[in-house]
């Protein structure tokens, strides 16, 4: 494994490690076998581990999530894939009414240690039904955890942490990140992962404003921070990494230092995770440190358009973060 690799490779390496170290782990999903998955993330795994451990399923998302619940309740560690996160709409009962609830509803008799991997986000020209960012739904459901890695290393480490968790975890990957490269240290054992679900990471320190983001927007926020730094604005960039639970302590203490908050995610603003981050700050004593109204940089509240320019306009880009940061400093 190279010192440097892609986000997709890092996920693939995590899956390989999981399959080889823990015989309770198996994969299931549409076209994850010989096809290698719609984005090549599972490439080679069926050859290495066989069709018993890497299972191509019919086009039945409800069954994919439901079989994971049943297998997890009975001792396995399923890691299933929903080919595009948009298709979880067909699996909501298994995820929300079953996986999320059974541990509590059955009085602790069962645990449901399953992971659902799904690529989300826009920018690929696949339009309204293949470009959504739906993390807000899952972050609203008691019993679920939601992980959204932004970096190559986190894509590896957080997936390992997700499988170690005794609860159902939704692991949302961003399509445009799959090909991105970054420094990478593969873990030798699953337990070697340093990632902790619920821990944010400060990607860049800064004293003028706090930018809280996750997934691809954490990367864009970092780019934006470098740009505004040329204008003498030093932004602190926080990658939330997991959106349920949210590491509000890190955001609050940062806001207390900077006095300004900008939140960025690709999903539309209304009732998005960004609203929760904002609320989590202003219901704490961090409110008193705010020097200006908070800003959200989010997707336009519209289904994802197909045309390249429309799509670009519907998705928050680095320059939108730059612009918002500069305006925030003026107010």
């Amino acid at each position, binding site marked *: 494994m190279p010192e440097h690799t892609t986000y997709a490779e890092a996920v693939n390496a995590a899956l390989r490690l999981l399959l080889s170290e823990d015989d309770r782990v198996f994969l299931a999903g549409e076209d994850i076998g010989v096809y290698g998955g719609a984005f090549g993330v599972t490439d080679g795994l069926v050859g290495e581990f066989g069709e018993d451990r890497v299972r191509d399923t019919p086009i*039945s998302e409800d069954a994919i999530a*439901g079989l994971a619940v049943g297998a997890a309740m009975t001792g396995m560690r399923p890691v299933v894939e929903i080919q595009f996160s948009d298709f979880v709409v067909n699996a909501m009962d298994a995820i929300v009414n079953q996986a999320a609830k059974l541990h509590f509803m059955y009085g602790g008799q069962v645990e449901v240690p399953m992971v659902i991997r799904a690529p989300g986000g826009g920018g690929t020209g696949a339009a309204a039904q293949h470009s959504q960012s739906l993390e807000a739904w899952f972050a609203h459901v008691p019993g679920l955890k939601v992980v959204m890695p932004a970096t190559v290393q986190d894509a590896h480490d957080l997936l390992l942490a997700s499988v170690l968790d005794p609860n159902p975890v939704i692991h949302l990957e961003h399509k445009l990140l799959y090909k991105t490269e970054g420094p990478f240290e593969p873990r030798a054992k699953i337990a070697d992962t340093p990632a902790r679900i619920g821990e944010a990471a400060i990607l860049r320190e800064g004293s003028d404003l706090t930018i809280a983001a996750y997934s691809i927007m954490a990367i864009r926020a970092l780019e934006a921070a470098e740009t505004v730094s040329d204008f003498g604005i030093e932004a602190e960039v926080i990658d939330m990494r997991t959106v349920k639970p949210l590491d509000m302590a890190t955001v609050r203490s940062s806001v207390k230092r900077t006095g300004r908050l900008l939140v960025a995610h690709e999903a539309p603003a209304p009732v998005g995770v960004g609203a929760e981050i904002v609320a989590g700050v202003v219901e704490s004593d961090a409110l008193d440190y705010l020097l200006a109204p908070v800003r959200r940089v989010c997707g336009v509240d519209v289904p994802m358009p197909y045309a390249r320019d429309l799509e670009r306009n519907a998705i928050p880009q680095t320059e939108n973060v730059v612009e918002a940061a500069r305006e925030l400093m003026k107010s």
Partner: protein
Amino acid sequence: MWTIRRFEEGVEELFSYDLLHGTMHLSIGQEAVAEGVCGALADGDMITSTHRGHGHALAHGADPELMFAELLMKDTGYCRGRGGSMHIADVKNGNLGANGIVAGSMTIASGAALTQVMRATGKIVACFFGDGAANEGSFHEAINLAAVWDLPVLFVCENNQYGMSMSQDRSTAGGSVAGRATAYGIPGVEVDGNDVREVHDATADLAERARNGAGPAILEAVTYRYRGHSQSDRDLYRTQEEIEEWRSSKDPLARYEGWLKESATLSDEAIESAREQAQDAIRLAVQGALTAPDANIGDLEGAAYA
């Protein structure tokens, strides 16, 4: 079967005293399905159940006292008072749980069956569902998956002929749930769900088949619900005559007792004492449950997570 009936009658009584919360879905009249299926399963075999699951749980070995405790919102209940009537699970005995979502346990059953294959346990899963559940997409996806992967799961349709107020002929194209098995290239068997021996034998055959790797099957047991769908049902969608006919001439308990006598398997006295035993067991279970400590209200924060 007497235990199930007495249990359900006990539930009605407690409900009438306003000692329960929410509503209850009773299986009075359908006892032979639960009894016939679970009686034919082997040690370690599992079941998944429905909103009308008291009978399934009892037939699969649940302790009536812990079930009453659950309904009575006691800390000793199967789900510590968190689940209630629609969500009783008894995982130790292989009951993976009742489910408040119609057809909600069908894909779960396929998943549990997959574990048996991957672990080569030789165990099977019996998945109870209702006639109304056969029109949910989950029914289709769960059975197709089990069939293409030859999973050891027996899909048991407890056909009491109504989904709430919808008669099967108004809701179910083709008119037969067992008949839908052909769509998946698996066996579909319809039995008299009020004849416990017929249910038992059909289950034994199909369970054996599944255990041997031949894959899933659909068993449709035709029965009838004497009580309303739930406590609020006004029974406007069926006639009193229809209900009466089933009670008087097709009751599963009466029929089984009749056979026990004819076949001289049990004497009248033996039958009578079996009835009384059930009666006493339920009385004791209620008493025990009533005196148990209430569900612990102090521990909700964070309880959603393991």
